[in-house]
Structures are given as structure tokens and as C-alpha cells.
């Protein structure tokens, strides 16, 4: 594979326009690599054709893991390892264990989910992002088209991007 990747970068200046443009550009037979926006636009990932995220499943599983871990710990310490009679109650005092079990579940869910999020998007401290246009974190909406994945010529794609509302089209190589 070629060591340099060549991209055509369409710059849009409106969030609703870029959402319409994604559908238009796709319908003209251009494969969009990714769209970079300063804030979330609902439905953009669906329009590009990204699969639905499975983060909620990860969150649920981490919650289950947290509940299991913390409940096992309480059960082990209070019933098996060092049982104490407290107010004449059963060693297995389920209602009293609800608060700590709940907190443990929340803790595991939050950290597990956020960890999964960082790993799945490969975000880590000090990572250098692949920046197509510095303004994509300010006020511009950036559509990146990977030339390697498209058969159409650059001139053709550029005119499609322009027709769908791009205010500039630039070339970016990595």
C-alpha cells in the first residue's frame, strides 16, 4: 500500500447543510471516510453509514461485573470470613448491603464504559490527532474523502462536494 494517503477535504460552514450534504454526496456515488464537527450532530453517523455503537452493551456488562464483584466481597467478608452479630440480624443482611452494592455498580459502569470509549476511539494522553482542518473544532464542518477508496477523479469529487454546499475543497496528504 502507498505510504501517503490522499484526501479531498470539503469544508462546510453549517451543521444542517453538512447533514444534507452527506446524503447528497453519498447518493452521487462518493464514499465518505468521515465527517469532523465541532459539536455532535444527531443522525450524522447514521447518514454516513457508521454501524450503531455498542457502548451501552459494554456499560451494562461492566455494571453486572461491578455488582457481582462488590456483592461477592460483602458476602465473603460478612458471612464467611468474619461473621459478626450486629443487632441480632442475619449475617446475610441483604437490605443493608443495597447501598454499597449500588455504589459499586455505578463505579464499575462509569469507569468501564469511559475506558471502553477511550480505547475504542483510541484516545489517550498525548496522542497526536490526524487533523484534516484545524477549524473543525471551532466552527467548520469537515468532510474527508479518501481517494484510495474512490474510483471517481478528483475533479469530479470536488465538483460534487462544491455542488452539495462546500465552501472550500482542499487536498490533504498524510
Amino acid at each position: 500500500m502507498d505510504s501517503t494517503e490522499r484526501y479531498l477535504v470539503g469544508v462546510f460552514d453549517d451543521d444542517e447543510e453538512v447533514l444534507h450534504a452527506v446524503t447528497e454526496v453519498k447518493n452521487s456515488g462518493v464514499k465518505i471516510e468521515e465527517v469532523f464537527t465541532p459539536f455532535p450532530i444527531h443522525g450524522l453517523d447514521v447518514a454516513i453509514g457508521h454501524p450503531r455503537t455498542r457502548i451501552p452493551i459494554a456499560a451494562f456488562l461492566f455494571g453486572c461485573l461491578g455488582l457481582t464483584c462488590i456483592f461477592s466481597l460483602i458476602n465473603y467478608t460478612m458471612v464467611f470470613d468474619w461473621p459478626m452479630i450486629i443487632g441480632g440480624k442475619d449475617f446475610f443482611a441483604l437490605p443493608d448491603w443495597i447501598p454499597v452494592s449500588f455504589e459499586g455498580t455505578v463505579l464499575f459502569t462509569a469507569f468501564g464504559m469511559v475506558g471502553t470509549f477511550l480505547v475504542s476511539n483510541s484516545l489517550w494522553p498525548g496522542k497526536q490527532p490526524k487533523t484534516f482542518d484545524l477549524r473543525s473544532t471551532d466552527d467548520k464542518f469537515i468532510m474527508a474523502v479518501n481517494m484510495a477508496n474512490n474510483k471517481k477523479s478528483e475533479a469530479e469529487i470536488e465538483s460534487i462536494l462544491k455542488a452539495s454546499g462546500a465552501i472550500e475543497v482542499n487536498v490533504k496528504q498524510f
Partner: protein
Amino acid sequence: MSHVVSPIRETLVSGGKSYHDVTNDICKQVEGEPTKEWKIAFGVSCIVFAYGAYCLGYTWWQGIGVWGLNKTVGWAWDITNFVWWVGIGHAGTLISAVLLLFRQKWRTSINRSAEAMTIFAVLCAASFILAHMGRPWLFHWALPLPNTFGSLWVNFNSPLVWDVFAISTYLSVSLVFWYLGLVPDLATIRDRAQTKAAKFWYGAFSLGWNGSAKTWARYEYVSLILAGISTPLVLSVHTIVSMDFATSVIPGWHTTIFPPYFVAGAIFSGFAMVQSLLLITRVVFKLEDYITIEHIEMMNIIITVTGSIVGIAYLTEFFIAWYSGVEYESYCFINRATGPYWWAYWMMMTCNVISPQLFWFKKIRQSILVSFILSVVVNVGMWFERFVIIVSSLHRDYLPSSWAMFTPTMYDIGDYIFSFGLFFTLFFLFAKFLPVINMFEVKSVMRGVSTNFPAKKKSSGDKSKETVH
């Protein structure tokens, strides 16, 4: 689309801002030299912090005998301050999580600083928990760690252990929620950075964020789920704090009304604190277009609602003390209102129940000066509420020969001053080095709510593609 807004709504961002204006306005104070006002304010808070640190250091060194506690009043300012700060902390999570679930768009310009306030307030609360342990270096004994004395564990049936788990989970989850919200904005600052240091630090902390559609889609799910789990979490925290009292057998504490009553009080005082801070921040950083009168009014409405809930709780407690027929309970409440601590009780009643009722008048709700004064008054009242609950329930116990009064020493006061120093030092550092307003969330709600955008929306509908900026 998602941004359907009724035409009768006030605009959330005034001044006809574009997206780029938002970036400029918020990044300005991060990128520029610190202003003279900031330096003075930061200097003062550092001095307060240093004095407080001396007092707290002395408390740690000598032990809590330097406080004014006696054998009858074993909890006083320490736990009062702890509950007060934790309660204040609740507003940040309420604003960022509960208002997110309810799709309240006005939260976007205040959630960042409210969440920061949450974290700093919980740290202040933690300082009292550590200090009141007496030997803070042994705080890990409260955690379920196997220890050198055999296989002795913490008692998971005890509300004090629940509290350890609740507060530490709350602090760490709030920190994650806040930091995750900061990442896209740190990336904005990184991409504008001119100096090497700014490029390095904001680059490191923005984790290589690039704002791709895929990342945002996942990000929105993560925020939603974090909000979903933070909502019961924040309610559980103050519920558990109230159970520290409610599961005991002290008259005045042993009541089932405590959890909802404490949670309402926490929201009440927290919103008041957010109000105080925002009214200062918006002037100092010239953010009047982002934190508008509409925001201030919304906050005041929540303060009135929660203040009224707290008022009803006070009256219910009194009614139940009489209706239960328990003479100790009745005496405790009569003693609160007419005993030697009557002034604290009536201070609490005036500040918390009567003063927020002024907000029924729209003129008062929209007055910045009155809002500021009342927000401070509410927090004074909420401090007295905790003092009344703790000290007035303890100081006259079952045995009249051991009745006593509580007098704070300079170290009680100094440790309280420490928490203010810590809080404001951290808050000023936050306000200088991090964006005080969540830029990406404000941008995402601007269409249809900013005065700039209705015209623009029309023009993008027709094919002429004129840009109206």
C-alpha cells in the same frame, strides 16, 4: 430536527453570536494574560487557603481536642461543614445529569462551572471527614482492605461505611463526567494554541480528540448513560448522608423524612451556590450573552421550589414530633425553636423558608443584585440548618446533668476557613486555565435559540446558499 424551539422562548444565547464568536469569547480568558482582578482574587484566596492550612495542620498535629467539642456535643462544625459542602456539590450533578435527561437546553452554559464546583465542594467536604477521623493518616481503615490485625473487615451494615463508598464513588464519577465533557473543548483550545506550552498541555489533556462523527455518536451515548447513572447516584449520596443521622436513635435524627428532606436541601443550597458563583463569573469574564437573565430566573425558580420543599419538611418534622406522642422527640423540637439555640433555628427558618418566597415576584427573580444577596442568604440558612440538626439534637440529651453548649474555637473556625480557601483557589485556577462554559454544548443548542439563527435557517432551505453571518 432536534432543535425545535417554541417561538415564545427567550433566546439562550443573546448578542447574535456565531459559532466562531462562541469559541473566541470563551477561549479569550484561557489564552490571554490573567487580568488584574483575577490576580487579586486568586491572591486573596491563596492567603485564606494558607491560613486555613495552618489551622487544619494544627488540628491534624494536635488532634481534634483543639475543637470545641465536649462529651455531650461530639459532632458540631466538622459534620455541619461536611454536610453543607456535600449538599452544595449536588447542584453540579443535578444540572449536568438531571437537566440533561430532561432535555433542558439552558443547562448548557452553566453545567461546566457547576460541575467544577461539585468536585471542589466534595473535596472540601472530604477535608472535614478526614479531619474528624482524628487520625487522618489511618483513613484507609474505612476501606475493606485486609489488615494486619487478622481478617477483620469493615461493617457493611453501617451507614458510615455506606458513606465512604457513596462519597468516593460520587467524587470519582463526577470527576470522570466533568473531564469527559472538557475533552472536546480542550481540543478546541489545542487547535488554536499559539504557545508551545499551551500546545503541549492542552494537546496532552485533549487525548487526541478529533471530533469525528463516529466519536461523537459514541460520546453522546456515554454522556447519556453517565447522566443516567449519576442521577440515582447523586440522590443516593445525600440519602446516605442523611442515614448517618436517621439510623441512629437520637431524637431529632431518627426520622424517616430525612432522605428526601436532605436531598431537597442539597439541591436548594447547591443551586444557590451556583447562582452566587455565576453572577460573579458572568461579570468578571463578560459572559452576559451566555449566562442571561433567563438562566438566572430559571435558577431562582428551582431555588424557590426546593426551598419550599425544605420548608414543608421543617413543618412536617414538627407535626410528627407532636403527633407521634414521643415526649423526647417533642422536647427536642420545642428545644430547637425556643431553647438556648433558638437564634440558630430562627435564622434557618428565615433564610431558608421565608426569603426564597420573595422569588414569587418576577421583578425580584430577574434582579441580579437581589438574586445574589438571596443566594448567599440561602447558603447561610442551609449552614444553620445542619448546625441546628446536629448540635441542637445533641446538646440536651437524656441526662440533664450532662446538658452542654457548644462553643467553637479558632480551629473550628480556621478549618472552615480552610475549606473556603481550598474551594476558591481551585475555582479561580479552573476559571483561568479551563473553559468556564461548555463551548460545544452551547454551539449545539444555538440553532433556533440564538438570535442569529432563525434567519439563517430560512436561507439554507432555499437553494441560493447565501451565508448570513
